[in-house]
Each structure stands twice: as C-alpha cells, then as structure tokens.
C-alpha cells in the first residue's frame, strides 16, 4: 500500500529561518492524521508542501506516492482546505460550486449540492457575507466534493466557536468514513484532534517530535512514579521522555515496547495530552532517545517545594540532569504534571491540568 505521506530530510527555509527542518515521516494510508504543535511550529509549512502549494528547500516529499502539485492528476487526488478557509468574497456560494465543478474532473455535484442544502447555505449569497463557520463549511464542501483520496486541512476549526468546531469535525469524519478518504489535519489544540485522529504527528520548533499511531503511542508510553533515582539506571529498552524529581521521588515518562516489571515503580498510563506535552517540552537539541527534559514543572524557582528539593539534592547526580533541563521554558505551568512535594510535607501531589 502506498504511503499517505513520506518525507525524507524535508525542510523549508524562508530567508534565513528554517520553518521546518529535517522532517522524516512515513505515514501509512487510510489514517486520519492529526498534526499538532504550537503556533509557528511549522505545521502550515508542512501542509503547504504536502498540498503542492510550496516547494521544499531540502529533502523529498511524496504524497500518495506522487510529487505534490506535480500535475493535474496529483492535484485531483489531494484536497486542501488552507488556513482560514479562503474563499472568493465576491463570488456566491453557487459560483464556488461551479468553480469546483469546472476545475475538478472527479467533482461530485450532487454531494456538493446536498451538503450546501443541509448546511442551510443560500446559494445566491456571496462568500464574503457568510459567517466564519459557514465559510469553513463551504471550503470543506469544495474539498470533499472534489473526491480526493487525501484531504488536507490546515487549522480548519481555529476560527470556529466550540459548537461549530464540533459540528465541523463531525461532518468531516462522516465524509471521511463515507468516502474512505484519508485526512491530514492540523491544530494547535490537541483537544480538537484527540477524538478524531488515529495517527498523530507532533511538531515543535520546526522539528518533528513524535509521530505514530495513537493507540501504539498510548500503549508504549507510561508514567513511572517511585523513589528518587537516576533515570540512567533504567533498563536499555526504556527511553526517558521526561523526568521530574522531588528530593524523595522521581516521576518519569518513558517509552518502551516491553512491559515495566520493576516493582519499585508505580506504573500509570498517560493521556494523549500528557504524552504530547511531554514531547513538546523537550529541548530540540536533546536526542529523541534517553534524553531528560523537565516538563514536569520542576524548573528552578518552582515554589518552596522546589527550593527544598534543590537543597536536599545537593551533590546528587540528578543535579546535572536538572541543570541540563530547559531553564523555565514557560511550559511548566501548562504541563501535565505539577509537583508540589515540599509544600505538602514531602507527599507529592500529582495534578493533571486540563
């Protein structure tokens, strides 16, 4: 089966800044792929290249086996709803459908008409006078009625209110199921993607941090809580994604294909959000295996507990690790775990922020 998206060393440079660099992915077909990352992470750049809108500066990219935008045939196989769902303000809804019909050989006119009717869009209304949600729906209709094999959507719901967001994603998933099309969509909010995606790519700082099937990711990542110890002493099959420590306790997020048997650890499963945040907070320079980030909010100056932890751990080997951790990257407040050990008499409180 041809890969939905395969990239090797893919990069895009704007002036002197790399918007995306060294991106290597191999996404099998038939997935609903979520692309998540903070603003400016390179999501739009990657999607633009996949849709054939932008040429790469480095590396190669193949979508459904073909070079994106290479010709009418490749363009017909890939639908694209760009960021902010652009439409022609001066053209009516009916004009847009006609545009789709004229420019796409596989256009499904009845599907487009039905969708527009179901959405309650007046065909005579100019697109410039539609609400943001209606415009997004019109753009999605153009994308779906084109009958592509892969539909790419860039932040399709960012301009929508929560209700419209849910309706939009629902409509998208229905269409994907009916037409058996693969979907690649991005968002800076994981919550948008959590319910819809079965494959996840995490981008941050122009680099791919994580890519894989959601189920597999959840099955191979664990949160280990136990007495304080050096993560370097873990078995070779367990790769530390993030680590946080108090003076008595260590909390790790590890990736491992094998079950964790060590009885000193309390093993808990991770939510997708915790998992993504753990990867996003990792510094870029850290290698993807065995590095020790500190997304757990145990950055310096993290309250009285943090201070106590530092005092108690003077000379401890973990201090070097802690020093290598990002210096209060600003992610500590929003990260998945917050450790306030010292403040509660040494008993760690594990709190998941939603």
């Amino acid at each position, binding site marked *: 089966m041809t890969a939905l998206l395969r990239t090797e060393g893919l990069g895009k440079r704007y002036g002197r800044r790399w918007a995306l660099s060294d991106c290597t992915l191999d996404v099998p077909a038939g997935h609903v792929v979520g692309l998540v990352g903070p603003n400016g992470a390179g999501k739009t750049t990657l999607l633009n290249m996949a849709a054939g*809108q932008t*040429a790469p500066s480095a590396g190669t990219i193949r979508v459904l086996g073909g070079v994106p935008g290479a010709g009418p045939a490749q363009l017909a196989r890939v639908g694209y709803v*760009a960021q902010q769902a652009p439409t022609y303000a001066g053209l009516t809804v009916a004009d847009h459908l006609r*545009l789709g019909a004229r420019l796409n050989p596989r256009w499904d006119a009845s599907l487009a008409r039905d969708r527009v009717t179901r959405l309650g869009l007046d065909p005579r209304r100019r697109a410039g006078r539609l609400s943001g949600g209606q415009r997004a729906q019109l*753009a999605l209709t153009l994308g779906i009625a*084109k009958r592509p094999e892969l539909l790419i959507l860039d932040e399709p719901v960012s301009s929508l209110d929560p209700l419209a967001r849910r309706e939009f994603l629902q409509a998208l998933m229905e269409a994907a199921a009916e037409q058996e099309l693969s979907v690649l969509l991005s968002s800076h909010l994981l919550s948008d993607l959590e319910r819809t995606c079965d494959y996840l790519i995490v981008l941050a700082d122009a680099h791919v941090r994580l890519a894989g099937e959601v189920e597999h990711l959840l099955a191979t990542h664990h949160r280990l809580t136990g007495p304080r110890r050096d993560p370097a002493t873990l078995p070779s099959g367990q790769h530390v994604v993030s680590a946080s420590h108090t003076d008595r306790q260590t909390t790790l997020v590890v990736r491992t294909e094998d079950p964790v048997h060590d009885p000193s650890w309390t093993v808990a499963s991770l939510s997708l959000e915790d998992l993504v945040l753990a990867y996003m907070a990792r510094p870029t320079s850290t290698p993807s295996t065995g590095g020790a980030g500190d997304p757990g909010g145990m950055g310096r100056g993290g309250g009285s507990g943090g201070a106590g932890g530092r005092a108690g751990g003077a000379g401890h080997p973990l201090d070097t690790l802690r020093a290598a951790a990002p210096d209060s990257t600003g992610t500590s407040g929003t990260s998945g775990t917050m450790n306030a050990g010292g403040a509660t008499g040494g008993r760690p409180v594990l709190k998941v922020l939603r």
Partner: protein
Amino acid sequence: MTWLAWRQFRAAAAAVAVCLAILAAVLAATGPGMAGDYASGAAACTVASAMCMGVLDTFLNDYKDVLLAVSAAVLALPVLVGLFWGAPLVSRELEGGTHRLVWAQSVTRTRWLAVKLAVVGGAAMAAGAVGGLAVSWWAGPIDEVATGDLARIGPLQFAARGIVPVGYAAFAVLLGVAAGMLLRRTVPAMVLTLGVFAAVQVAMPLLVRPHLVPPVRATVEITRGSLESLGAPAGGSPIRVSTRAPDPSAWLLSSQTVDPAGRAVGAIPLSLKSGPCRSRGDVTPCLAEIKRLGYRQHMVYQPATHYWPMQAIETGVHLGLAAGLAVFCLRRVRRLT
C-alpha cells in the same frame, strides 16, 4: 478555468468597456460634423487657394482640443488596464489567500495563470485596438491637413493612433501582473506599474522611436517655401533660421544650419540691421544672400510614409516585451508560495 478567469474579470472588464463606450460616443457625435467641415474647407481650397489656408487653419483650431482630449483618452487606456486589470490579477489572490483555494483545484497553477493571462491580455489588446482604430478613423480628416505636432506621425499623436495601443495595452497588463507577483500586494504593484509604464512611454519617443526606421537626412536650400522663422535673438546679428521638413506632415527630428563645408553652425553671420536682410516684409534678398554664402539647412526627419512601418515595429516591440513578461510570470508562478 476560462469560466473562472472570466467570472473574476467581468466587473473590471465592464468598467473599461464603459470608458470605451463613452469615447466611442464622443467620436460618433463629433465625427460626422468634423467630416462635413472638412469637406466644405476642401471645397473652398479648390475654388480659391487664397481662402484655403485660412479655412483649414480654422478647421484645425476648431478640432484641436477634441483631438488632444481623444488622444489623451487612448493614451490613458493602457495605463488603466495595466493598473486595474494587470496589477491585481495575481496580487489580489495572494493578498486574500484565495490562491490557496484555486491552486488546490485539479488545475496546475501554470495553466491557471496562462488562462488568466490569455483572457485579460486578450481583452486588453482588444480594448487597445478599438481605441486606436476608432480614433484613427475619426481623425482621418485632421490627418489630411495636420502638420507639425498634430501630424499623426508626431510624438503627441503617434501613440494614440493605429495599432500601437494594442502593443501598449498588452505590455501594460503583463507589466502589472509581473509587478503584482513580485511585490505580492496590489497597491504597490499599481505604483510600480505606473512608474515603469510611464518611463517606457517617455523613453519611446525620445530614444527609441526615431530609430525604428532609418530617418531621412536631407540638406536643402533655404527657400521661402521651407522657411519657418528667421530672426536674430541677440540684437540683430547673427541671424538664426528654422525650416519645415520638405514633407509638411513629417516628424522633424533635427534641423540645423550648415555652412558650405557642411559643418553645423548655430547662426549665419548676417545682420537684420544692415545689408540684404535689413528690409522688413520681404525676405527674398536675405534668402538670396544666404544662398550665395552657401548656407543650407540640414534636416533629419521621419516622413509621413514611415508611419505604418513605425507603427508595426513599435507594436511588435511592445508585444515582444509583453511576451517576455508572460514567460517570466509563468515561470515564477511555479515558485510562488
């Protein structure tokens, strides 16, 4: 794709069509009256040649303003289409993000742009042809008698006549499109288009057009018939003369007095206060003296017969520039992001 190109273009096309219709109405309203005036003037010329010059001068004076206004309208036409058809063609899509929508359809962007260029460029050339040929038809009687600046080969009239507006319009539109693709914003693209097009319009008559067809060079005797003026700006001596081209409706490029050796001289060492040139009213003795001294007038000019060859070449030059810009745009669109 043609449908979309036309659908996006039709409002702008209608606006320029209205301008052309107004021009056509003005021409249609004044044309027959002018042709009638001309016919009666021509009749006067056959009856008594003394009346002839006066009648024709009156005729030219009557229609000079209309002629200049109509010419200005045809000169403005390429600017209009360059600014309002060419410059926004791509830049507006880039500004509104709609290029992402249209490039995501099953049409390569090269074809997308090629169709747009064909529709808009074709319309611009049609508009230029209508404007240029309508004015040429209307000004037919004037061209029969006009001399000097008003001659149709002269720099003021040439650009508004015949087929050159076709070349100008094509060039202006492609210039606008290219500027829009380079600058990615409509208003700066309009400014750049206007600047470059105006520069080309000024450079053409000054630097290029005189040499499109090799001009005629002639050294002729200064006679009453060719003399335009004779005077002495600095206190009566020396005197300066200027002459008309042998062909009255030619475009005179340069005219200098030369001495018997053929060297250009600014003035002739004669005085208006003494000698043969003293007599007021009759210049015959003065001209005879000038002839005796061997001074003649050297002129470089484009005769009226060069009008159509020059029209064809100048149109070709602009169509060539437009084609070059089209190639540039079609190459560049592949690399736009």
